């Protein structure tokens, strides 16, 4: 039986109490994407600025949510800053893999191997503290909300006519 200490690790509570990169960016030039968790009404707004060098130049998070969604967003922002768009996408995949979410292929097979590879190549660092969330299935959506929103923001920021 998983206990609360599996969920609320100290580092998660730290990011919750002192969220990194909170705020807004002018959009445009930044991409601004809202994410909603329809189950609980939480919302997150990701502001993402990709520089001419293809790296995440700046990122800001606003919105409201529970400790898991807020700390996950905070850690996400800290971990993608300075990364290339491809590295950020790999990190998203690795994070979702850690959350046991595997993209379904059209033929029904899962992308386990690719996710495992993504996970082993990508340094998760502090993000591993969120691993305990998997034991609380209803909270997985809280943890992945900001990551799904980031994925959309990356698409927007790199769209041909953005």
């Amino acid at each position, binding site marked *: 039986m998983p206990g*609360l200490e599996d969920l609320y690790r100290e580092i998660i509570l730290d990011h*919750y109490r002192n969220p990194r990169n909170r705020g807004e960016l002018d959009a445009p030039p930044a991409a601004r994407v809202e994410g909603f968790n329809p*189950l609980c*009404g939480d919302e997150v707004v990701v502001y993402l600025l990709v520089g001419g060098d293809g790296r995440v130049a700046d990122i800001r998070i606003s919105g*409201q949510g529970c400790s898991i969604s807020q700390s996950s967003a905070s850690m996400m922002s800290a971990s993608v800053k300075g990364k290339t768009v491809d590295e950020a996408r790999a990190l998203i995949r690795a994070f979702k893999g850690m959350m046991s979410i595997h993209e379904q292929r059209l033929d029904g097979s899962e992308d386990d191997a690719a996710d495992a590879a993504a996970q082993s190549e990508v340094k998760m660092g502090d993000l591993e503290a969120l691993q305990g969330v998997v034991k609380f299935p209803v*909270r997985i959506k809280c943890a992945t909300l900001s990551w799904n929103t980031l994925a959309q923001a990356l698409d927007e920021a790199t769209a041909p006519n953005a």
Partner: protein
Amino acid sequence: MALDVARIKKDFPILDVEVHGGKRLVYLDSASSSQKPRAVLDAMDRYYETTHANIHRGVYSIAEEATRLYEESKTKVARFIGAPSARGVVYTKNVTEAINLIVYSWGRANLREGDAVLLTEMEHHANLVPWLILKEERGIELRFLPMADDFSLDLTDLDRLVDGVKFVSVTAMSNVLGTLTPVRRLAEAAHAAGALIAVDAAQYVPHISTDVVDLDCDFLGFTGHKMLGPTGIGVLWARDELLEEMPAFLGGGEMIRDVRLDGWTPNEIPWKFEAGTPPIAEAVGLSAAIDYLSALDLEAVREHEVSLTAYAMRSLTERYGDDITFYGPSEPSMRGGVLSIGFKGIHPHDISQVLDEEGVCVRAGHHCAKPLMRKLGVSATARASFYVYNDEADVDALADGLESTARLFG
């Protein structure tokens, strides 16, 4: 007579379940769905074990008995809500479907572009989204009675808002705030304006003695699983004349008198609105739930909930002062046993998660009332709700659990 909660608790097998390594289950989420007494479970088992067959079809004895049990449940429902006869009692799968039936049948037959319908800002999505769908389809106008600062329904502009409307559809009790709305007054205003009125009584019928004649409503909907009954059954009651005039909603078996390749004629009410095999075992369970509630006496149930709500508000305030916020009327007799709280700015998900560790079940979220949450200025609340099997010890467990929450997040 006060409820003997210690005895009542013994009637609910689930309350013996232990969670998280030996913690007593403290169930405070009955507004979402109530637990079931053994009498309901046994009645359904007995039905399946001894008399199950499809109804209104077979001439053999168990089919006749199944039909009798099904129709008897409708008579009980009618009596339970003071309806003149069981002809006005339509079974649906829940109250959501009951309201959809009103909108799709009565609404589509009677509302045109520009016609106005009056709702309130406190509606559950069940009594809002179907109307929004009709608005998209027909271009009807929706008006809303606002919530006042004291969480009551603001009737200041009632005369203006009700003027010219064709239909009024209101909750009898808010599932977020616990607010009781003045249904009789609203019915009077609706009828004076030449409109009909429907009441979403999902949170009312399980807790307060209900009389549709006294409330003077035209339609009333509620749901079995919130009143000690099973899931999968809801009730739409409507005045016979209205059901007679309304077109059928879902088509299929049961709801027809005759079918030819080029047409069909509808069955009599209420069966005209019950397409396909209905929830028979669920109807039997609902019967048993009504028997159980009636034996407790709804007056005593209401008294118990008012006093438990008063105890909860008093003890939580004594313990946590300004750290706790109640979203709802401050006077317990003006409200139901639904307590939406804010606590130290801690997110309701986190509150609910920590409470769960202590065996305490409360609901966290927007409670299917997003427009109301926006008005309250929060994205979610933690909600504790009380029923016949809750006592002061359950409230104390909630108060203790909040202390753990504060320790972790405060």
